[in-house]
């Protein structure tokens, strides 16, 4: 990805940061592994989600972390609904 994209954090309370593919990959991978997916399947899902999210955000100068999570969750929901559920809800457990 050539373009630099800024991610505005939740509620604007924390400073904006650069989009980091590795961070997104790690979070999606963790969600897939949490539902006991095999590692290879989890890697494939995480790569697929990252590719979709990157092509989505390349058209935008700035995105919010909520939009980023929503887009990632929507795509993950198509390929791995169980993992998408945990990915969407992990902040709503407590």
């Amino acid at each position, binding site marked *: 990805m050539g373009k630099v994209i800024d991610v505005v954090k939740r509620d604007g309370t924390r400073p904006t940061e650069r989009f980091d593919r590795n961070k997104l990959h790690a979070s999606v*991978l*963790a*969600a897939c*592994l*949490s*539902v*006991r997916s095999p*590692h290879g399947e989890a890697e494939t899902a995480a790569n697929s989600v990252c590719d979709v999210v990157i092509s989505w955000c390349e058209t935008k100068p700035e995105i919010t972390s909520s939009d980023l999570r929503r887009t990632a969750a929507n795509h993950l929901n198509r390929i791995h609904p*169980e*993992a998408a*559920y*945990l990915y*969407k*809800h*992990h*902040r*709503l*457990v*407590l």
Partner: protein
Amino acid sequence: MNTPESLIIVAVAALIHASFQLSVSVLTLLSSHTIGAKRSHARLLGLTNAFALGVTIMTVLLLSTTALLIKLKSSFIDQTALWVVACGLLFGLGVAVWIFYYRRGQGTSLWLPRGLARYLSDRTKATKQSAEAFGLGLSSVVAELLFVFVPILVSALVLIELSPAWQLAGIGLYTALSLAPLLAINAMIGSGHKISRIQRWREDNKRFLQFASGGGLLVLGFYVYVDQVLTPTVLAAANGGL
């Protein structure tokens, strides 16, 4: 109050305690982070068992300490006044559970202030050692003290009237029943069930649990009020009139 009646009240109070979900939420989150971080199954079991042990020990400590304090101060405090306070707390808490135990919206977000919820969530994510998981278990019970204290108080008031052997049995009964959901979920996670299925079940049934929990508090409050406050007062008045 006879022994079977006392044990039934302890059992009902413990079941109400069991319907409070903070420890179960933290256990779910802890397991999810541990599995997601590719830690071994033995490490997962070590962490979840240490967490459950922490919850168990804090529950036993809270119940025993409350009973001991009431027993020590029983000569200075009118027992009926304590029962009136306990009944008031049961009614108040029952309504509070119905109104705000779960937050509105998706997920199983609890009444906790968001700062505390974030702190617990971050601590859960950072937990890697069994000792940390044990501490997390202790703190998750303390964090929900606002809700669990009332069933503990009622059980303590009942237990101090029993013989020492039955007091121990009562503490054991309370602990076993109040921890039953936590231990069941711990066993499910240990046997390979998906966290997402467990969490989805919790979310689908949270309103029922909230209703049952609040209703249980109101019913227990009514029963205890009639049995421990109203009946002795009426009997005393009748005997005084004779």
